[in-house]
C-alpha cells in the first residue's frame, strides 16, 4: 500500500475570504518524519486540517496513498491520517481518558475486544495506562498532551499529523514527548515553532509563509540559513545560535 501524501497545487480560502494557501505543492514520502515550519498565520493549521479532510481544498488536490481527498473519500482518509491538535482540551472531549482513546477505534467499527486492546496499547505506549479511568481534566497538561497522542495512536493510522506537540510543556514533558515522537514508525508531519525539536528529530523540513512553500530540504541545512529564517519570522535553533554548527548568512 502506498504511504505518501501528495499536495498538488492546493489552494484554500476560508469563508471570510482569507486565502490561507496558494497553489501549494509538496510530497511526504513513506516513513518520513518532516517538520512544517513557518510564522503564525503561514497556513500550517490549514494544511493539517486539509490532510485529514476536516477542510476540503478550494482548488488542487490532496492525495493520501492512492486516494484523492473528496467528500466521498473522507472515511478511508480519516482512517489513514491521524490528526493531533495543539490544545489537548480540543482533542479530548469524552468524560474519561479510556473513552476518549476508544472514540476513534469505535468510529472505525471495531469489535469491543479489539477496541479494548488498542486502548490499552496506546495508553501503554504513552505511559498513561494507570490514568485510563481519570477524566481528562484531572490530568496534568503534559499528561493530557500524551493522552491526546494516544487517542490517534489507537486508530493505528499510517500518517500522523501533529500540531505543536511540544508547545507549553515543561522541559521534562517536552523531552518525554520528543522521545515518543522519535519512536513513531509512521509517516509524520509536525507543525512546530520548536526549531530545536525539528533540528534534533525531523530530517526534512518544509518552510511555508503566506500560504506558499518557501523552501523544502534537509532540516539542518535550512535551519543554518539565518537570512532565510529571518525573512520568514523564524530564528536558528540553539545548536546554531550557540555555535555547535556554522551559520549561513549569505542567502
Amino acid at each position, binding site marked *: 500500500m502506498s504511504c505518501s501524501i501528495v499536495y498538488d497545487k492546493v489552494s484554500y480560502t476560508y469563508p471570510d475570504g482569507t486565502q490561507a494557501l496558494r497553489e501549494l505543492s509538496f510530497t511526504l514520502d513513506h516513513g518520513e518524519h518532516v517538520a512544517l515550519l513557518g510564522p503564525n498565520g503561514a497556513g500550517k493549521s490549514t494544511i493539517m*486540517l486539509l490532510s*485529514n*479532510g*476536516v477542510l476540503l481544498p478550494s482548488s488542487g488536490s490532496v492525495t493520501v496513498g492512492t486516494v484523492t481527498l473528496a467528500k466521498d473519500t473522507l*472515511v478511508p482518509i*480519516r*482512517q489513514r491520517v*491521524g*490528526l493531533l*491538535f495543539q*490544545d489537548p*482540551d*480540543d*482533542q479530548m*472531549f*469524552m*468524560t*474519561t481518558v479510556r*473513552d476518549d482513546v*476508544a*472514540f*476513534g477505534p*469505535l*468510529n*472505525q467499527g471495531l469489535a*469491543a*475486544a*479489539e*477496541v*479494548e*486492546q488498542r486502548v*490499552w*496499547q496506546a495508553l*501503554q*505506549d504513552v505511559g498513561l495506562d494507570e490514568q485510563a*479511568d481519570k*477524566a*481528562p*481534566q484531572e490530568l496534568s497538561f503534559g499528561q493530557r498532551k500524551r493522552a491526546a497522542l494516544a*487517542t*490517534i495512536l489507537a*486508530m493505528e493510522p499510517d500518517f500522523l499529523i501533529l500540531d505543536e506537540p511540544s508547545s507549553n510543556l515543561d522541559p521534562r514533558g517536552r523531552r518525554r514527548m520528543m522521545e515518543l515522537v522519535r519512536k513513531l514508525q509512521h509517516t509524520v508531519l509536525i507543525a512546530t515553532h520548536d526549531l530545536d525539536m525539528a533540528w534534533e528529530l525531523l530530517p526534512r523540513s518544509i518552510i511555508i509563509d503566506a500560504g506558499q512553500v518557501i523552501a523544502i530540504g534537509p532540516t539542518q541545512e535550512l535551519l543554518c540559513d539565518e537570512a532565510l529564517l529571518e525573512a520568514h519570522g523564524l530564528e536558528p535553533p540553539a545548536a546554531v545560535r550557540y555555535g555547535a554548527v556554522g551559520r549561513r548568512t549569505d542567502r
Partner: protein
Amino acid sequence: MPAKPAPEQLDNRAAAAAADTAAAAPLRVVSPQGRLLAAVVLVFGIVLGAPHQLLIVAALVALVLLVAYIVQVSIRRILLRSLVVLPISGMISLFWPLRLVQQWNLDGLASAYAQGWSQMLTLIITPWLCVLVMMLLIATCHQADLLYAVKRLHLPHVLVLLLSFMYRYADTLRAQLRASHRALAARAPKMGTRRQVLLYGNLAGSMLVRAYDRGERIHAAMLARGFNGILTHKREERIGTPDIALILGAALLSVALYLV
C-alpha cells in the same frame, strides 16, 4: 514496549477490579443505570406521596443516610449539597399561600398563611428529599458512568452529548473565567460597581465567543477521528439481578409513600 495482553486477560483484569470495587462498596454491584432508575422511581414516589409527617420524613432521611453510610460516602457532603434547593423551594413556599388570600389585608394574609402552612412545609420538604436522593446517586456514581447510564436509558442523543460536554468542559470554562477575572483585577484594582457590572457583562460575551470557537475546534477534532453524528460507547453493561432488586425496593417504598 511490553507485549499486548490477550483480550481474555484484559477481561480478567477488569473482572478482578470490579470484584475489588464491589467488596469495598456494596452498592457498586448495582450498575449505574440500575441506581439511576431506582433513584428516579424513589423521586416519583416522593413527589406523588408528598410526605410531610415528621416520622415518615425522618424515616426516609434516615434510610438515605444509612445507604450513604453503608456505601462509604460522606453523609455531611450529601446533606450540605442537598440544601442547594432550599432557596428556590423556600421562595416558592413563601409565596404559595398568597393564592388562598380572599381579602388583601393583614387578617386575610394571616388567615391564608394559617391555612397554607402544611402545603408550605410540603413544598420545602418534597424537593429537598428528592435532591437528597439525587445527591446520594451522584455521590455513588462517577459522572462518566452516570452519563453512560442516562444514555442507556435512551435519553435523546443530543441531550447526552450536551451533558457530556458540560461535564467535560465545566472546569476549562471555570479556569478561563478565573484567568479573565484575575486579568481584570490586575489591571483595575479599584473599580466602581457599575463599571464592574459592565465589564463582567463583556466578559460573559467574550466567554460565549470563546466557547463557540472551542466548539468549532472540538467538532473538527471529532470529525478527524471519524465522528459521524453518533456517539458510540464500548461499555455494554446490562441490568442484572442486583439492579432489579434495588429498583423493586425503590418501587415498593414509593408505593408505600403514596399509600401512607
